[in-house]
């Protein structure tokens, strides 16, 4: 078996080098090596597809600090009481046992691009022929005056899922009667455009049952947001009078927070709050900066292959990438990972590379059985990933259709997590 595999690799490597790919993996070097940083929507999918489709021909190492990945997607449903926390958690066991991926639970802390080496926090060093980076987001320091990561217990972001999400849920459920829940919404671009507004819906759902005189205040630097008409219609219908949104016209873009005294200051006016969810401005996960592949806050990529524009041996996926029109979503990251996987295999083993295709659909839950969605298809142009068309749920839709849409989202969740983790 091993011998066969060698022969096969040798043959296809020769074929690939005919296409002018640098021959970095000769016989002495052994199997070509791929290192994937980040085991989330982009990274886990890429690792799995590269390992699965190369059938052992590529040595894949996945670097991810957590042993259990909690999905941000559906974490709002957990806040609303529609999912239990454990249903969001996924482990890497199958990626190791069924696909032969080396899963290393550690942080990547440095990338030496010339030597093609990744350094881990433990001090270990990994060689690569191709590096895939999908680290998700980090927050932009100082983007919400008064807030920094040390304030995340008083004012949680819950925008990376895990204990933050649990903390926010506990705060909502224990809020004093008639209290005020405030959300500081992020400026564009950020992960999951409808995410903050789905979250508001889910918090309203909880408060309506437990604390019906409570209020929700959204402080928003953006004029418009995704699925706005649909959310606003749903809020009117299910939670009348509970939710108020202050946009940039009224100071939603001039917000400061005071975690010690639980206050927000809106264009100079002080408002006492009981729970405050601060979602700061975002940027590519820090390792992108350390690797020197960012331009501004994000890491630009070549649309056809998701290769970094700064380094052809690196691919950047998901939220961290600046690719064009795709929203930063789990669906997008998963879609980009497949394009990346076929490009990486093509470059390292000479397998056939098919043209890039991308798509995205984001489902959101507004209330029990009231699901909505927005989606689009995309193609790679030289300049960017460009949207080619899409659809969005309509206001005034039939409740049966909304229920079907919600059920569909459950199917999607089961599908994408199986696609990521095997």
């Amino acid at each position: 078996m091993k011998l066969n595999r060698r022969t096969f690799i040798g043959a296809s490597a020769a074929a690939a080098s005919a296409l002018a790919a640098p021959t970095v993996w000769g016989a002495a070097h052994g199997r070509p090596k791929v290192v994937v940083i980040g085991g989330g929507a982009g990274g886990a999918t890429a690792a799995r597809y590269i390992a699965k489709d190369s059938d052992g021909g590529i040595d894949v190492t996945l670097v991810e600090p957590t042993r259990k990945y909690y999905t941000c997607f559906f974490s709002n449903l957990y806040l609303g009481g529609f999912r239990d926390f454990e249903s969001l958690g996924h482990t890497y066991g199958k990626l190791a046992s069924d696909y032969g991926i080396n899963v290393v639970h550690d942080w990547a802390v440095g990338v030496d691009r010339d030597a093609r080496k990744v350094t881990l926090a433990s001090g270990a060093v990994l060689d690569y022929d191709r590096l895939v980076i999908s680290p998700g987001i980090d927050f932009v320091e100082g983007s919400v005056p008064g807030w920094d990561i040390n304030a995340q217990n008083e004012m949680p972001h819950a925008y990376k899922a895990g204990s933050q999400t649990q903390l926010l849920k506990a705060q909502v459920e224990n809020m004093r009667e008639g209290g005020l829940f405030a959300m500081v919404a992020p400026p564009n671009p950020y992960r999951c455009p409808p995410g903050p507004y789905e979250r508001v819906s889910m918090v309203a759902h909880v408060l309506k049952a437990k604390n019906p005189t409570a209020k929700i205040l959204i402080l928003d630097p953006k004029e418009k947001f995704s699925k706005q008409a649909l959310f606003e219609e749903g809020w009117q219908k299910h939670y009348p009078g509970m939710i108020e949104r202050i946009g940039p016209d009224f100071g939603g873009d001039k917000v400061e927070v005071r975690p010690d005294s639980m206050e927000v200051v809106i264009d100079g006016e002080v408002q006492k709050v009981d729970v405050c969810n601060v979602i700061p401005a975002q940027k590519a996960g820090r390792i992108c900066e350390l690797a020197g592949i960012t331009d501004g806050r994000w890491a630009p990529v070549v649309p056809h292959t998701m290769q970094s524009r700064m380094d052809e041996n690196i691919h950047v996926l998901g939220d961290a990438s600046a690719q064009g029109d795709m929203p930063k979503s789990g669906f997008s990251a998963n879609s980009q990972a497949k394009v990346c996987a076929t490009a990486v295999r093509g470059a390292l083993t000479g397998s056939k590379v098919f043209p890039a295709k991308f798509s995205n659909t984001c489902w959101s839950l507004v209330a029990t059985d009231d699901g909505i969605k927005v989606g689009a298809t995309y193609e790679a142009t030289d300049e960017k990933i460009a949207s080619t068309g899409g659809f969005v749920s309509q206001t005034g839709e039939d409740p049966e259709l909304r229920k079907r849409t919600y059920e569909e989202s459950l199917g999607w969740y089961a599908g994408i997590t199986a696609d990521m983790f095997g």
Partner: protein
Amino acid sequence: MRGSAILFSLLVAAAGAFPAAAAELIGDAERGRELFRQCSGCHEVGPGARNRIGPHLNGIFGRRAASVDGFFYSKALRRAGADGLVWHLDTLDAYIANPKVLVSGTRMSYRGMKNAEDRADLLAYLRQFSDNPRDIPEADPTAVRREVELAPDVLAIKGDPEYGEYLASECKTCHQASGRDDGIPSITMWPEEDFVIAMHAYKQKLRPHPVMQMIAERLSNEEIAALAAYFATLKEE
């Protein structure tokens, strides 16, 4: 099969084409900024743009015709808006090429921009002042999809299962390869012909599901055949 005969005639009737110029990325926005000088006597665009002789052009992509608040439109343009004229890449392109061809009674007294490349560049410039699909996914698309040629022997195409396997990675985000159905139906081990017919039915918008219509719309006949060939042989786990 009865369904296939009906569908078949629809497929042939539906063949059509978009202007090739619009199929790639829109155009050179820098050049478009220069070209906009021809328009700026009447229109403003960008931060703080107001209605002048013509309406401001912020957010024009995806907007229904004649729908800027506070601007008094011609009856003809209002009527076109009420009939469902929405400003997308293709409609804007036609309007700029010759306004009176698209809306006979429009007050926009502009001869038209004859050069397709100029129009593409101008539209690339204007596009920057409309919502970005990255931030608001439902925002108007920036590219126009290439249309497929439909040959009369669509059903007879032999699909390439290897290509099908690659394409299927898109399906598997929702349709589980194992054949499990948690709210989205299984398509594993579907008979090839049923698969092909169903996908063309989505493509022609006969089957009413927006996600599937969207996915099917840009699959070529060969790609549908390839997918069908792949899923027919996939084993349930």
